[in-house]
């Protein structure tokens, strides 16, 4: 059963068309990796799926929540769709625990003890239980990004979006973040990521989408997309990055 469904999603910044009739479906528990040049629209597409950007045409359905160009119940959508950003965007004035428990507390009204236990559990999942009382600026970039993943997990989302989450990290720190994501995928989380980590996409994702000029240019298994590109555009892109 498809938990993510996009049909003819379009968006423009002024006269510049950033998304052109993007359509695809994703089954529950799958991982989709979106690849493509910068400016191809992949990050914009991801942000549309969480209502951080509006769309001008088509329809998005995420875990049962519909997004159209009209009104959207963003709060309900966002309780079921988490996003992790390139720059982590942790709350610098709050401890790791409070970063993680803020939304369960104020959005879901979770009790304090329960929230603390939840924080421990999701932090253990990303291997950072010991940092529960630290502040973000006391952590490395990789650790901050793992806290950001835990923060998102604490809302028990049905779909998680990852927007170039390793791009701001030093190469030696990307591994720990990718490992956490791989564990999540194994655990059955539905994930969509925008990434430049081609090897990771090929190994872990079960679907790969190539974005080009705002279109979903090619879409299929890693095997199809990355080994047997059907278009010269994708061939050129793969040739440049691999």
């Amino acid at each position: 059963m498809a938990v993510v469904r996009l049909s003819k999603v379009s968006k423009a910044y002024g006269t510049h068309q950033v998304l052109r009739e993007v359509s695809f479906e994703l089954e529950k528990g799958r991982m989709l990796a979106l690849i493509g040049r910068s400016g191809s629209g992949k990050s914009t597409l991801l942000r549309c799926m969480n209502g951080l950007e509006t769309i001008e045409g088509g329809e998005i359905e995420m875990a049962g929540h519909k997004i159209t160009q009209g009104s959207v119940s963003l709060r309900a959508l966002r309780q079921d769709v988490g996003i992790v950003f390139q720059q982590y965007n942790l709350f610098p004035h709050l401890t790791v625990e409070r970063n993680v428990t803020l939304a369960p507390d104020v959005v879901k009204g979770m009790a304090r003890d329960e929230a603390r236990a939840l924080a421990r559990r999701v932090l253990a999942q990303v291997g950072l239980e010991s940092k529960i009382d630290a502040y973000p600026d006391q952590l490395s970039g990789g650790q901050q990004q793992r806290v950001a993943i835990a923060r998102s997990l604490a809302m028990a989302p049905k779909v998680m979006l990852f927007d170039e989450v390793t791009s701001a990290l030093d190469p030696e720190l990307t591994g720990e973040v990718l490992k956490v994501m791989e564990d999540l995928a194994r655990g059955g989380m539905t994930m969509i990521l925008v990434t430049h980590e081609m090897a990771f996409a090929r190994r872990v994702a079960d679907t790969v989408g190539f974005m080009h000029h705002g279109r979903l240019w090619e879409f299929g298994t890693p095997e199809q997309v990355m080994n047997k590109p059907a278009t010269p555009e994708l061939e050129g892109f793969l040739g440049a990055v691999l």
Partner: protein
Amino acid sequence: MNSRTFSWTDVLFLIEAARWTLLLSAIAFAGGGVIGLATALARTGPSRLLRSLASIYVEVIQGIPLLALLFLSYYGIGILGINVSPVLAASLALVLNAGAFLGEAWRGCIEAVPRTQWEASASLALTRPQQLRYVILPQAVRLAVPPTVGLMVQIVKATSLASVIGFVELSRAGQMLNNATFKPFLIFAVVGAIYFACCYPLSKLSGRLERSGNGSRSPVKGF
């Protein structure tokens, strides 16, 4: 005219009057703080109407002399039929004045919190009031402390103009004393020194907070 000498009793008289300066400052800061917060929230908020109203308020107050505002307040309250007390008129004018300057400063602090903090909290399904309360304002407050302390100095100095509508605070007391003793050089030097004693520590504090606050983002608790 027979003038008398200037004595320690007179210095005490001035210090007594300075209490009214501080009281009026406290009123202006408290009232101005409430209006300033509302203004800052309106100017950074989603409602176009509130944004415009708040920005007109700031533009107008910052475009007229405080002295004119004091006169307007004094005679305006008068024609409403309320018995005009100088302290009421002065409080109203100073609150309106402080509200505009604090509102403008605080708007800047709210806008200085990175947009990504709004995005991150929005994507966790927080409502706008929740975003403000838990994520944006706590960070803006830290940025706001140095300019706010700086504006407190402006407020203390601004209360001196309440003397023109007959409120007896420090400056007015100085004028009264001068009329009795004719020692203007000494009296206004002492008056100035008392203001300086109130304001200088605040100025220094503001400067120090600004220098120490900028670089580090280490956890500062207790705000």
